[in-house]
């Protein structure tokens, strides 16, 4: 009766088998429809004479794939990915860099230096594990809590900090709130705040890739378990499946959408359970286990590109920080609850122990790199603060490819206004013509 799942991808076929098992269990002696399955356009399934409702307990929960124990030891050596030592160290360094950036930028928001920030604690393994398993040419549609992917791809702390300050070196030209990064050069589509809008977009991008001769690229789309409640999420899954798109739909299930816990966000077996039901290869992994994430994404990537099909990955994690600097999570959860995710289940800690077991890392190197990573951020911030904001005219650029006369006129009006009333505008903070 129970669906036997392995750590591998769930297939729709498996679900069909379950229905067969269920029906076998209750099938009467008499043969229905000559033993042939029904041939409705919407379902090819056997007939039964006994009615039975299915629910979330009709199946085993989808298991969570792990490679490492919390102490950093590999559970099954066959699952240990073959990654070069230098790469492993770079992966760890990226997580530490990310941690340091989070600490300092969070604090800088508290001091009023930037207007907003979002930390990534406990999701570092998801960022780095997935980024390392992808080709740098794969297109990334991020939500807003994936800055580790950006760092791993090669976006510098300087570029990220400039974006948070919205200064004239921000590639986004100061138009968006902090953490809305984007980099054409590194195939990272600029982040937008509305949730789940990126999901059908990612599927469309994957379809475009598929049509390119000898395509070797896929698309990865990150989204949270909260965003998965949006209508766009369902649209994305269904389009990805029916239009056979080489896209990895990567859910970061960190347990909270601002204050709303997963239990109030969905019922049933999480986001992963939606994959097989829509005909999508699906796997659930421990998001605090970087190596598990790495394996899942590399196999998903191979499958997606080879078969032109989507894959759904649900990475289980926990949002250790507040939702953002606008949030105080003590209003809806206890410090006690957070503790374990910040210690035993910390992806950074686990991966560090793994590197230590391999003899690639030690306390001294950790101290040195932490210090350096912190200094990089501090130095970058000091520089970013000195940089002027972009020329105010950037406010009206890029609305259209060519500025329509009406906007040209508005720019002229503002220019004349600023000539007349310069003392009432913070012009000295902005670049001038």
């Amino acid at each position, binding site marked *: 009766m129970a669906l036997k799942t392995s750590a591998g991808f769930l297939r729709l076929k498996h679900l069909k088998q379950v229905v067969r098992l269920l029906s076998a269990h209750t099938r009467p002696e008499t043969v229905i429809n000559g033993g042939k399955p029904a041939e409705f356009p919407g379902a090819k399934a056997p007939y039964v004479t006994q009615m039975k409702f299915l629910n979330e307990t009709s199946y085993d929960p989808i298991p969570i794939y792990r490679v490492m124990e919390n102490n950093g030891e590999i559970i099954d050596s066959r699952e240990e990915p073959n990654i070069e030592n230098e790469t492993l160290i770079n992966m760890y360094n990226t997580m530490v860099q990310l941690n340091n950036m989070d600490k300092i930028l*969070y*604090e*800088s928001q*508290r*001091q*009023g*230096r*930037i*207007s*907003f920030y979002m930390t990534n604690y406990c999701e570092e393994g998801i960022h780095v594990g997935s980024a390392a398993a992808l080709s740098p040419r794969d297109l990334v549609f991020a939500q807003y809590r994936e800055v580790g992917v950006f760092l791993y791809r090669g976006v510098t702390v300087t570029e990220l900090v400039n974006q948070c*300050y*919205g200064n004239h070196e921000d590639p986004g030209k*100061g*138009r*968006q*709130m902090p953490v809305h990064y984007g980099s054409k050069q590194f195939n990272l589509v600029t982040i*937008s*705040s*509305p*949730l789940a809008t990126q999901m059908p977009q990612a599927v469309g991008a994957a379809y475009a890739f598929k049509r390119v001769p000898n395509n070797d690229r896929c698309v990865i789309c990150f989204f949270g378990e*909260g*965003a998965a*409640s*949006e*209508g766009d999420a369902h649209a994305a899954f269904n389009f990805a499946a029916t239009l056979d798109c080489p896209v990895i739909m990567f859910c970061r299930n960190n347990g909270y959408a*601002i204050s*709303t816990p997963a239990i*109030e*966000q969905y019922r049933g077996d999480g986001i992963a359970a939606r994959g097989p039901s829509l005909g999508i290869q699906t796997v659930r992994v421990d998001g605090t286990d970087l190596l598990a994430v790495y394996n899942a994404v590399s196999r998903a990537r191979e499958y997606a590109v080879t078969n032109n099909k989507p894959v759904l990955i649900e990475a289980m994690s926990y949002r*250790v920080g507040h939702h953002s600097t*606008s*949030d105080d999570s*003590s209003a*809806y959860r206890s410090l006690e609850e*957070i503790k374990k995710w*910040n210690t035993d289940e910390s992806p950074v800690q686990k991966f560090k122990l793994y590197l230590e077991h391999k003899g690639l890392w030690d306390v001294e190197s950790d101290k040195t790199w932490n210090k350096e990573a912190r200094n990089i951020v*501090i130095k970058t*911030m*000091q520089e970013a*603060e*000195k940089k002027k*904001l*972009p020329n*105010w005219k*950037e*406010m*009206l650029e890029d*609305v259209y490819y060519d500025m329509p006369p*009406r*906007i040209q006129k*508005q720019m002229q009006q*503002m220019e004349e*206004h*600023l000539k*007349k*009333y310069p003392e*009432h*505008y*913070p012009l000295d*903070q902005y670049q001038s013509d």
Partner: protein
Amino acid sequence: MSSAIRKNCFLISKLFKNVNNCSKRLSSHFIYFPDNEKPVDGETSKMNMMQAINNAMDITLKNDPTAVVFGEDVAFGGVFRCALGLQEKYGKDRVFNTPLCEQGIAGFGIGLATAGATAIAEIQFADYIFPAFDQLVNEAAKARYRSGGQFDCGALTVRTPCSAVGHGGLYHSQSPEAFFAHVPGLKVVVPRGPIAAKGLLLSCIRERDPCIFLEPKILYRSAAEEVPLEDYTLPLGEAQLLKEGDAATLIGWGTQVHVLLEVAQMAEEELGIKCDVIDLQSILPWDEDTVCNSVKKTGRCLISHEAPLTSGFGAELAATIQEECFLHLEAPIARVTGWDAPFPHVFEPFYLPDKWRCYHTLAELVKY
């Protein structure tokens, strides 16, 4: 965790001592003019707009057993805390979180209202209301009409924070009133402060038509007034004349009302002229009488809103005013608004129709 963070904060603040602090957050772009007139007599309490809205919902939940309050993160009070304490007071079946889905929230609210319940839905930011556009425009607005009056969802009120806040950027700053003002069947309301918010929200909740209640989020905490504690409503479809004069009519809603009140004060001091200042309050339907009577008196009109110029609600006002007041107009109707661009983050001081832009336009208008 918290102690670790505190420790880090301390270390980091030490490190920051040498960093130039050249990018202090910009202070608010307006002065708040509190309401001094009370709509009803009786006991009052000092409330900010968040508390006044909370009070209106509290009164509703207390008196209307069918009423429910829901939306994303509403259980703990919502991200702006307008529903603070209501779940504890009225229970989890009346004040609750929904999954993260605006179209779901709107549709669910329509269903509640269709089945006889009073639905008070919160969309976390007006910038995120667009997935619910279909439900609101095609369903809520047309329910009575398409059923020949058999069904309606008048008991639905959708509350949502809108407008500039100083650092909201593209997706935490928009003022989408004009989109909804284009939809026959909806009522659209924007309060300018706590007293107005309470009375107007209670009207919206009891109104027989579905209402979109846009709350300028910058006023939640920055605006405080002596709000009457008892139950009162303010009429929908009526504007309020807040200041009287004869030189020009200044029309705004929400936060912009306060900018215009200051502009009127500046004009009085600098130009020696007095203006009518009208808070439209109801965007749809709007109060043609109050507006046109004022413009007929003053002969000059300035309309100001944060939303972009093109097809902003000012366009509708201007068109009607020129039809109704053509022979009284001494100058073309002026509009001072956000520019025709998305709402930008670091350029907000240049984007907003601030007092200097409004003042300059008013000065030109009276010289015309």
